[in-house]
């Protein structure tokens, strides 16, 4: 994700420069996300209809940069009104006092899946880490669950894993080692790293969605942990890619309002619209990410629906964002130690 952010930064800076001239007068909201097809879909599903209905202009900006967000809040010159962030960061930022509390008179809290809403953030969308594999590389063997990642005899080839010390990799290692889903937290780091040690030399790390797709489609990695939307996109393109949803690990993006936002009221209305049943369903139909609004499921495209995490709720394990928000930095220290060892 970090790399995607860089790549699109220049583009968006240019767009913003032209856009900001036009919208000086009217009420407006600066919306910040990760760029690429995700932000395009957010614009199409949320921003455009919202502007038409309310008369509030939505200026697209990006990419999301946590350091920048903190700097804005600290300096008191907050340029961003709504920001798409990762779930564990949303909780960490709230604890650090970087976010505005949301107004749940405007936003309908009871319609949002409780996993994806807090006092300072409402879900943008959710997605799953799934087991993906290249059928051409693995032949007839169909890996079933995370244990396949650690079985290099049956499933040879490189393993593609998410490179940042964030929720996902440690959990899947523990699950593969036989830890029960409800006993995952607090994470047994020693056990997780010991398990990962067994395949350390076979891991290729991916830092962003495009890179993960490239690794799997090219066969550079034969199996790995991927975002479900990226696997779906590869399958749509006809790549020989298979997926197992067993123990799919749920992660989410959250929409937040930085403390000191200059268009707070308009931002709340934007969030209400984005998290509405329609807004969430429209976005899901464009992206293959899952809606956080419980009423959206009925509105999903019938062809797409079986490919969304909502269809695999029974096999789902939701990553503990609160645990990561609290322990993330300490885990990262251990993570880095293990990586460079």
């Amino acid at each position: 994700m970090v790399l995607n952010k860089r790549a699109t930064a220049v583009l968006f800076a240019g767009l913003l420069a032209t856009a900001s001239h036009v919208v000086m007068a009217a009420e407006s909201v600066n919306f910040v996300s990760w760029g690429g097809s995700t932000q395009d879909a957010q614009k199409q599903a949320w921003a455009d209809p919202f502007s038409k209905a309310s008369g509030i202009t939505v200026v697209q900006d990006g990419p999301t940069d946590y350091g920048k967000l903190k700097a804005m809040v600290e300096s008191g010159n907050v340029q961003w009104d709504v920001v798409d962030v990762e779930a564990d960061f949303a909780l960490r930022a709230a604890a650090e006092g970087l976010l505005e509390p949301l107004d749940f008179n405007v936003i309908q809290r009871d319609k949002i899946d409780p996993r994806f809403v807090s006092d300072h953030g409402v879900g943008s969308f959710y997605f799953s880490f799934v087991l993906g594999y290249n059928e051409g590389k693995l032949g007839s063997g169909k890996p079933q669950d995370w244990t396949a990642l650690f079985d290099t005899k049956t499933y040879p080839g490189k393993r593609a894993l998410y490179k940042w010390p964030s929720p996902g990799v440690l959990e899947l290692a523990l699950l593969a080692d036989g830890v029960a889903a409800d006993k995952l937290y607090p994470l047994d780091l020693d056990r997780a790293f010991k398990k990962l040690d067994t395949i350390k030399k076979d891991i290729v790390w991916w830092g962003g969605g495009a890179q993960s797709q490239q690794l799997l489609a090219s066969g550079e990695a034969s199996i790995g942990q991927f975002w479900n939307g990226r696997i779906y996109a590869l399958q749509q393109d006809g790549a020989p890619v298979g997926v197992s949803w067993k123990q799919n690990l749920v992660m989410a993006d959250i929409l937040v309002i930085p403390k000191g936002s200059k268009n707070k009221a308009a931002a709340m209305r934007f969030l209400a619209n984005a998290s509405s049943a329609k807004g969430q369903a429209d976005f899901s139909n464009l992206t293959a990410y899952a809606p956080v609004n419980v009423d959206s499921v009925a509105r999903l495209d019938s062809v797409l629906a079986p490919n969304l995490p909502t269809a695999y709720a029974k096999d789902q394990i939701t990553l503990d964002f609160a645990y990561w928000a609290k322990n993330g930095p300490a885990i990262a220290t251990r993570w880095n130690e293990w990586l460079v060892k």
Partner: protein
Amino acid sequence: MKMSAAPLQPNPTGSAIGAAGSASGKAAVMKQSPSLAQRWRGSSNLIPALLFLGLFFLAPLIGLLLRGVLEPVPGLGNYEQLFANSAYARVLLNTFSVAGLVTLFSLLLGFPLAWAITLVPRGWGRWILNIVLLSMWTSLLARTYSWLVLLQASGVINKALMAMGIIDQPLEMVHNLTGVVIGMSYIMIPFIVLPLQATMQAIDPMILQAGSICGASPWTNFFRVFLPLCRPGLFSGGLMVFVMSLGYYVTPALLGGAQNMMLPEFIIQQVQSFLNWGLASAGAALLIVITLVLFYFYLKLQPESPVGASNSR
């Protein structure tokens, strides 16, 4: 800034000999040192530049460095954490070995290239130089991704080698140290070639001729005459590449594996993911100190540089 300094290095008629010969020979050529007032004459012209640097470079830099001792609690906790943890020592080692290897390879590749540019007829030389510049101006991201296409397991190079039957397992040339060194050496070569070529251009071919007339074999001529004359270019190019490599982010992030984490990636992780600006600032301070120490040695070792000369007066 440093790049333009290299071609500007003074080359008075005597200096070629001075550079090759001893430092005392050089001192004799120089005039008596002028008085203090004379030497600082005209320094008021520097005020705008100093003001600019002070306001927009030094002040923010100091603010940044202060965070390292003030956040999250005042004290040296961040530095303690940085040095006590073996992982960070390893990150530092990675940073140095990558920078060192990149400098070595770009010198080895850049030297013949700079020489070729100097030797070929003038028009051709300008063409080659333009190609070097053009590659420098192309988007860094595009160039780095191109290397990925070439080097990966199913990439052009591996496919070609396997088709020819030279190898039967794809070589692992990316997502590891090899990939980083290849990608970065390529990116850094222009920064070696430009100063080096300027230095070589300024060397009087008659000197080499004189060397061989005096009985030097081609090898002796190269190592004892030509190479010492190239020293200013080699030093300024090499140092620039080394320092730039220390702070490089994009290429290692794309072509390297996670186990080869370098200091810049560590800093970015702390700034962006964990908002741990104190530790990030400590890391940045370390990078700055290393750079300053290197620059000091550069001035010591390279008395021909204009700055060094006035220091060692």
